[in-house]
């Protein structure tokens, strides 16, 4: 697989951030729910559910309660 380098062309992961989460959601007859797709491909899983640390919340045990 080839991951685009940010400096050459649009990085695939930036593209997927927008294309898999954005856009108007329409219920076409053949529309699939991306949420229901079983993302078995390890690299793909890494792409789509990129690890989130700072944005999601404090690290466990950091005592940074809201």
């Amino acid at each position, binding site marked *: *697989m080839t991951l685009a380098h*940010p400096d050459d062309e649009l990085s695939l992961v930036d593209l997927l*951030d927008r*294309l898999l989460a*954005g*856009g*108007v959601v329409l219920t*076409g007859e053949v529309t699939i729910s991306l949420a229901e797709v079983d993302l078995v491909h390890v690299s793909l899983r*890494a792409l789509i559910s990129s*690890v989130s640390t700072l944005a999601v919340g404090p690290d466990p045990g950091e005592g940074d309660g809201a």
Partner: protein
Amino acid sequence: MSLVWVYAVRDGDADDPPAVSGVDGERPRVVAAGTLGAVVGTVADEGFDEAGLAAAMEDLARLEALARAHHAVVVEAGSAGAVAPVRLATVFRDDEAVVAMLRERADEFEAALDRVRGRREWGVKVYADTRAGGDDSPAPAPGDRPGTAYLLRRKADRDRGAAGRERARAVAESVADAAGTHAVDVRRFALQDARLSGRNEEMVLNATFLVDETQEAEFRAAVTGAGDGATVELTGPWPPFSFATADPP
């Protein structure tokens, strides 16, 4: 038999379909209804039916090809005016179904187009070394008590780590604030795994902003001037994928 892939909805009639190839190599066209035009492409049912799309979503090469083609058509579709991108992998049976959808959701599309008209999406990512502490003085090390020295060193490392993360968080928020000053809306994405960026630094902000075209110069200046030593990466302009819906996706 064929199916109809929907790329985007925009103002206007069937004139000037985007002059780039679509997801199935097809030439996109426009299906119009009322004041709206859906930019669509005729695709083979094989590979684009439910099973085919589900399989494509698990095949990185196919997903990438679909994503890049979808994006390219949406960019072209929006080159002359407001465009409301449609979520990747939205397929209808035929043009009549697309027309019915356009009529049924006309108000929603008009609102979406009004929201993004004259505006573009810009991505802002910030990378910082979350381990770096400001104080890199060596840990206190009483030579005759190696156990204590070890524990003190561990504690100092831990403190530096927490301070580094806190500082990175603050830098991320300062960039987000600077960008937000010149933007009309913002969405945050999950932070991307360091394995994907190929950087040593950790991503601490992955946000995307809807910016008025009249504010772009100020926005760009604010973003590139912020960050205080962290690496700030600006991407765009993007079609307003992340702002086609009223609420965060």
